């Protein structure tokens, strides 16, 4: 009995036992498909977060005021009143600071915004024209806030795409419409391009207004929440951070950096904070993938073992008719390989298309890691082959009559 004949014979056996073959293949498909899809989703989400942070600008420093005693960074950013427009002006004009390209003072806070019968609670950001440059914000329609708008406190606004949709409905150009905030009527002059949804899509769900109008008329304050600074290159971020830090400490008459009433964060800092979060997230997804790999593997194992009784009789019969041990083991091994290969291929295609459609539906970037495919196929394949082959080997060691009597 030559090899080709053996393979043909195995294929024939597999097609004869459609139910058994179908269940085994299904087990492998689910095992492989789910692992590929889960890992793809995890990596897609991670990539989405990274892209979003990078889209904020890679040589961007954010100086935020820090509220008194409420401890480090979190919760207190923007809470204080220590940053002023004069600080921003000073940073921009001081000759000692050589590392910066542009400065954008900002004031932001959440307010209820209404347009006709619609209303939404969204982030109102008071900006200078530099904001669009530094934050890499481009416009889908209309124009951005100009220096003249800021100087003359014009009541205009630029909407983020999410805010525009909430207020005016999807696919409607809001330019020329009006919105109401805090009793003030603002005319919409532009709408920004989406920076992508998902995690903290605040650039999309925002209303931009001239800094002066926002600060004085909408919020009635005289301080800033943050100053965005663009450095001349991304290599000198740390130097810029130091320069601005010591300059502001001196300006605020503070000696110890520990007492600083502001925080300077670079994209790198934000990225590392966020990547701690996404790291946990990836570990979670990895755990889920490992569990589905295990479940898939057990599924494959079960169907292989469930057929052992019938197959043990078959092995006894084949031996009784003169099949040598080697031929029997080859037969079962080839069957297992065919099952695994077929299931693996279908599972892989299914997993890839599932992750494609899921990432489309969740608007995540579509990524497939070759390692996830290798892992899924490797583990499920190994389980399929081992549990196809091992019982067969055991049965082929029995006397034919013992195998025929097996129950």
């Amino acid at each position, binding site marked *: *009995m030559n090899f080709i*004949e053996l393979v043909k*014979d195995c294929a024939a056996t597999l097609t*004869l*036992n459609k139910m058994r073959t179908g269940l085994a293949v299904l087990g492998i498909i689910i095992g492989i498909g789910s692992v590929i899809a889960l890992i793809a989703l995890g990596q897609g989400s991670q990539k989405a977060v990274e892209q979003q942070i990078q889209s904020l600008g890679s040589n961007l420093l954010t100086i935020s005021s820090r509220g008194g005693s409420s401890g480090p960074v979190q919760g207190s950013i923007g809470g204080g009143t220590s940053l002023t427009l004069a600080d921003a002006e000073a940073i921009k004009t001081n000759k000692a600071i050589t590392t910066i390209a542009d400065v954008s003072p900002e004031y932001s806070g959440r307010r209820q915004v209404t347009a006709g019968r619609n209303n939404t609670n969204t982030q109102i950001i008071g900006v200078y024209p530099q904001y669009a440059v530094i934050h890499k914000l481009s416009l889908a329609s209309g124009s951005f806030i100009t220096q003249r708008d800021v100087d003359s406190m014009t009541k205009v606004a630029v909407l983020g795409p999410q805010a525009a949709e909430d207020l005016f409905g999807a696919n409607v150009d809001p330019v020329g419409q009006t919105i109401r905030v805090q009793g003030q009527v603002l005319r919409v002059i532009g709408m920004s391009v989406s920076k992508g949804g998902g995690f903290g899509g605040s650039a999309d769900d925002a209303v931009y207004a001239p800094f002066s109008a926002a600060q004085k008329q909408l919020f009635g304050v005289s301080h800033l929440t943050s100053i965005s600074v663009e450095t001349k290159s991304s290599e000198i971020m740390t130097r810029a951070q130091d320069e601005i830090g010591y300059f502001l400490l001196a300006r605020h008459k503070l000696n110890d950096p520990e007492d600083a009433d502001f925080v300077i964060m670079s994209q790198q800092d934000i990225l590392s904070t966020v990547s701690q979060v996404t790291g946990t997230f990836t570990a979670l997804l990895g755990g889920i993938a490992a569990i589905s790999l295990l479940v898939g593997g057990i599924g494959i194992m079960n169907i292989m073992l469930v057929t052992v009784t*019938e197959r043990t*009789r*078959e092995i006894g*019969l*084949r*031996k*009784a*008719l*003169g*099949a*040598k*041990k*080697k*031929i029997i083991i080859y037969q079962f091994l080839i069957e297992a390989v065919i099952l695994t290969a077929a299931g693996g291929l279908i599972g892989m295609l299914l997993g890839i298309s599932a992750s494609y459609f899921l990432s489309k539906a969740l608007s995540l970037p579509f990524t497939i890691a070759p390692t996830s495919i290798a892992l899924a196929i490797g583990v499920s394949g190994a389980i399929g082959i081992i549990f196809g082959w091992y019982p067969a080997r055991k049965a082929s060691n029995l*006397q*034919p*009559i*013992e195998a*025929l009597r097996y129950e």
Partner: protein
Amino acid sequence: MIKVSHLTKIYRIGSVETVALDDVSFTIKPGEFVAIMGPSGSGKSTLMHILGALDLPTSGEYILDGQKVQNLSDDELAEIRNKKIGFVFQSYNLLPRTTALKNVILPMVYADVPKTKREETAIKYLKLVGLSDRMYHTSNQLSGGQQQRVAIARALVMNPAILLADEPTGNIASVQAEEIMKIFKKLNQQGHTIVMITHEPDIAAWAKRTIHLKDGKIV
């Protein structure tokens, strides 16, 4: 030539020991036609399985054509089962969901009979047992008697020197049983050794010698 001496087979299931064969010795010369008779549980089938190299005795010796069967390797035993001995199982043991023709072809696959010859030979033997109209039926589509005749065709297809049949006519109507016996007789006349188990005296009458077993002993 089949020679068994002091053959004993003990089955152990848990702590319960069952003596299936108890010190059985006999010789069957080439070309003999022997019937083995005895009540159920007398060890007939166990004896048959040992003679067919499908099982090993607990003690005693089985010498087949001068070779001590216990000393043969697994592959050598497979070779003997394939070429030298044709075995008809009491419970037929056909491959499920497989056609009668494929079942009969199977021993030839393991014997590396050229592909072109296999089908021709299988059809010849299926005709011989009167199943030419059922060749493409799968085993579960066949009646008990038909399955038994497929099993007989499969045992004959390698033209073995020794035919061992465990109740070969147990499920076959008497007219067809006689047909089968005529085939056996003809094979015997051609020089094949035939050993069959039966509990019907008129079937046993076809044989030239009868061995009676009771409680694992020859009586």
